[in-house]
């Protein structure tokens, strides 16, 4: 059924991604900056932006297109963050408090957006875009007038001199700046340990109470595993390594290589000896292992080594991004994910199969809005200061442009495309002004170029989508005819 794609077809399908890859590499060379600098900047920006971009995937899955409405998620976070800053809740507590405040807001907003989108099926993208502007208006009303004007807030640091309205910028330096980025892995493991223990025991008790059979072997296995992992962190060397607030990129690459090798080996063993799966293709995992070994070997090259020891990663933030990727793919394997896919591909068929289309779409919107609000929180804590009236306005456009650059389309977007998109789009972000300055003596020209390209990509993707929609019916009937003949 599937035929191999020719190189030409592959190039054509990935044209946007390839153009950006070319521009990024060319820009880096023209900027005259060291690779180490660009990689360092890039890693910071991935940590900042990837979460928001990943929040776009679920609506695409559910057939609602690119969710320009994530601006509303960002707004939820900014309201919460203003309040926690006002209350001077600092550090990781501040982050958690903000998230705890922003999440119910985002759920509510997401529900409303979902309701609205259900009334305008097929026009969700333009609807989301306009909705973003509308929400911005309400947001301004809240921050310019209601805060101080209706709700008395006595806070000269945040409010303008008259006491009515919030200042243009909110500084997070003393409260939540880097609060998430600097959480050491050690603490994460500790918390995870307690959560796993509690969840396992509760689950077993719950089953006992419901008079269901409990898989004691499995429960015991999980508990022992958790204890072993936790015990390992008491080895001084491990403890010291994990207690760092940032991790060297070099170490991260090493860990990733080791993890890949182990995972692929496990896959082979699992398929061959445990499941005894016939026709399992060993080549694929072997290729991955070879790749991992190659990458590891390359870290011994001086040039690569220099880059890798220059950059430090905010581990917890990356962990959050990884967890979201895992969640996105795990969701696909659930009943809800399957319903979303069905709704995304054909509302009529899904409805006929007894799936509640409207409900599924609303859930997708809630997911997306909540994730976007968390994404904005990660972004703001990393920047450390935000423009009260501007920080959220471009969130949708930039996130969507990044996703599209990674090769996603209005109907299909994956984790891989999102991550690749962040890398390419933000490389250009970093190098375009520098390259402009080097080549033409003016940083703004590079900046103009970047803005032009990023909005151009969105326009192109939407035009292609519209074109495909128009071209499809004629094509479909043609195909039908051809098959009949």
């Amino acid at each position, binding site marked *: 059924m599937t035929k191999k794609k020719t190189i030409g077809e592959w190039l054509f399908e990935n044209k946007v991604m390839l153009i950006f890859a070319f521009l990024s590499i060319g820009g880096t060379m023209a900027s005259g900056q060291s690779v180490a600098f660009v990689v360092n900047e890039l890693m910071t920006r991935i940590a900042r932006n990837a979460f928001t971009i990943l929040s776009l995937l679920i609506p695409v899955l559910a057939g609602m297109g690119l969710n320009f409405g994530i601006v509303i998620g960002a707004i939820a976070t900014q309201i919460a963050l203003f309040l926690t800053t006002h209350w001077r809740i600092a550090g990781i507590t501040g982050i958690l408090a903000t998230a705890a405040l922003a999440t119910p807001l985002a759920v509510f907003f997401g529900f409303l957006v979902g309701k609205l989108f259900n009334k305008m099926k097929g026009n969700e993208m333009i609807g989301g875009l306009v909705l973003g502007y509308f929400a911005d208006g309400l947001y301004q009303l809240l921050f310019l007038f209601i805060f101080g004007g209706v709700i008395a807030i006595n806070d000269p640091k945040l409010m303008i001199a008259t006491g009515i309205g919030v200042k243009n910028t909110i500084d997070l330096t003393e409260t939540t700046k880097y609060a998430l980025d600097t959480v050491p892995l050690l603490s994460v493991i500790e918390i995870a340990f307690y959560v796993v223990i509690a969840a396992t025991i509760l689950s077993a008790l719950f089953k006992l109470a419901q008079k269901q059979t409990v898989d004691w072997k499995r429960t015991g296995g999980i508990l022992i595993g958790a204890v072993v992992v936790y015990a390992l962190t008491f080895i001084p060397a491990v403890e010291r390594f994990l207690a760092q607030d940032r991790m060297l990129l070099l170490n991260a690459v090493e860990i990733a290589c080791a993890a890949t090798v182990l995972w692929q080996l496990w896959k082979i063993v699992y398929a061959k000896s445990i499941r005894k799966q016939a026709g399992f293709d060993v080549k694929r995992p072997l290729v991955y292992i070879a790749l991992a070994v190659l990458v590891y070997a390359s870290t011994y090259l001086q040039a690569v080594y220099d880059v890798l020891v220059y950059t430090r990663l905010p581990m917890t933030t990356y962990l959050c991004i990884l967890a979201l990727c895992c969640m996105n793919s795990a969701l696909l394997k659930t009943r809800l994910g399957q319903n979303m896919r069905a709704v995304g591909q054909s509302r009529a068929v*899904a409805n006929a199969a007894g799936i509640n289309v409207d409900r599924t779409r609303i859930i997708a919107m809630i997911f997306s809005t909540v994730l976007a609000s968390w994404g904005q929180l990660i972004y703001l804590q990393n920047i450390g200061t935000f423009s009260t009236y501007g920080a959220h306005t471009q969130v949708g456009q930039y996130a969507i442009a990044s996703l599209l650059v990674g090769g996603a389309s209005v109907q299909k977007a994956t984790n891989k495309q999102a991550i690749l998109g962040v890398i390419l789009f933000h490389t250009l972000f970093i190098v375009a002004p520098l390259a402009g300055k080097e080549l033409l003596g003016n940083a703004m020209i590079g900046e103009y170029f970047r803005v032009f390209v990023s909005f151009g990509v969105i326009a192109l993707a939407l035009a292609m989508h519209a074109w495909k929609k128009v071209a499809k019916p004629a094509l479909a009937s043609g195909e039908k005819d051809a098959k009949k003949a």
Partner: protein
Amino acid sequence: MDSTRYVLRMKNITKEYSGNQVLKGIDLEVHPGEIHALMGENGAGKSTLMNILFGMPVIHSTGGFGGTVEIDGQSVTIDTPQKALELGIGMVHQEFMLIPGFTVTENIKLGREISHPNALSRVFGKSMETLDMEAMTRDARKALDTIGLQVEDYVRVAGLPVGYMQFIEIAREIDKTGIRLLVFDEPTAVLTESEADRLLEAMRVIASQDIAIIFITHRLDEVMAVADSTTVLRDGEFVAYRAIRDTSAAEIAELMVGRRVEKLVDEREDHRQLRDDDIAVQIRNYTVDMPGELVKGLDLDIRRGEIFGIGGLAGQGKLGIPNGIMGLYEATGDVTILGKKLDLHKLGEALRNDVAFVSEDRRGVGLLLEESIEQNIIFSAMQVKNKFLRTFGWIRLLDSAAAHAHAREMVQQLDIRCTGISQPAGRLSGGNQQKVCLARALTLDPKVLFVSEPTRGIDIGAKKLVLELLSKLNREQGMTIIVVSSELVELRSVCDRIAIVTDGRVSSILKPDDSDADFGLAMSGKKGGGKRG
């Protein structure tokens, strides 16, 4: 097959939509393991009957229905589709209810996925449960094997041949537990001959497992081949119940068409001289790519000055014929109008060659709903023939005086009931809208007029007026008129000859007074039923 028990008994079913009686006392009885054919022309009431059986919202939001439904001898009320599913009634849809991007397994288990609980689902409910792909694959495989479809369960539906999709739909219905009655709604309409044969074979296999089948189709030969019994409906009335072994294709055809005593056009004097060598419209090797109404290589000669009817069942391609000539859908082949060959790829070519068209899609293609009656009447002529325009150098302006005068004349001539010529066309009743469409076509002074479904959605009085007008135009002005219609009665009352189109080709050309059986057989795609007229 057990002929003493009934899996389904619908007795004396009546239904009306806003005062319009669409079902008048229908009985339908099906035994377990029986293949029962439900037959009738478009609009005979088959879909309404099935909607009642499935408890569709369209029935219950319009006041319900009369009569009783019994499943396995128990009287039941089916008020939602879910209820129908619970009672073991399944439907194989005419349009595929499949998701192209899903695998065969995923489609078969769509909405009924097997899943097992996990940590998250205990908190957030059933929708977060993990899918059990293995169990789903096992079930799908079993259903596919039952109907004998050799297809891997993990391939995507998108690339499969059309015939396979039908089978996957059937597999999905079979997979539902406790299924005892399956409705096949024109399943062979989109299949090739060999695929259709396989489908009939699969139907026999299913019936042999004591699942009853209601088989809705227009194809008589299939009914004769596979069905055990048949119920024939006509105009919402129960016509006959027959065991297939006691009847013949010709009898069923006659029952389906029936002679209706309804005179639509008064006789008028006929001074026309129709000659077989004086051809107004010649069509050769003509195809039209109109979705749902494909024309596949059709030849036709229409004599100058005749009223020619084109009939046939919905979806067979009759509507594609005028739409292709007017350039509304992609068309190929040779079309010669009054000796001039048309370039089918050029929009407006037909209009410039004295052809006018009244579309079946009155509100979509036929009228500018928000514009006035006057605008609607003069629009085409103004665009195509530069009528109603005054020229000042290179500027052309609307000659509103001439336009008013013409519109008033037309309103009077066609008896268009309106508040005035400036009333928006969208506010008129169906019959008056149709007259505006006709007025617009006549303003073009056509020599050949195509009228598509002229009486669709208009009441009987307006129907008669429209048909009489066509007849008058033909007799008095010698206009060649081609009427495309699903209503055989109206074609038989105005036309000189009637071509029946099946599967995108002319199956036969009949005279209006040919027998009902001939028309029935021609519509069912059996060739050689009629004589050339």
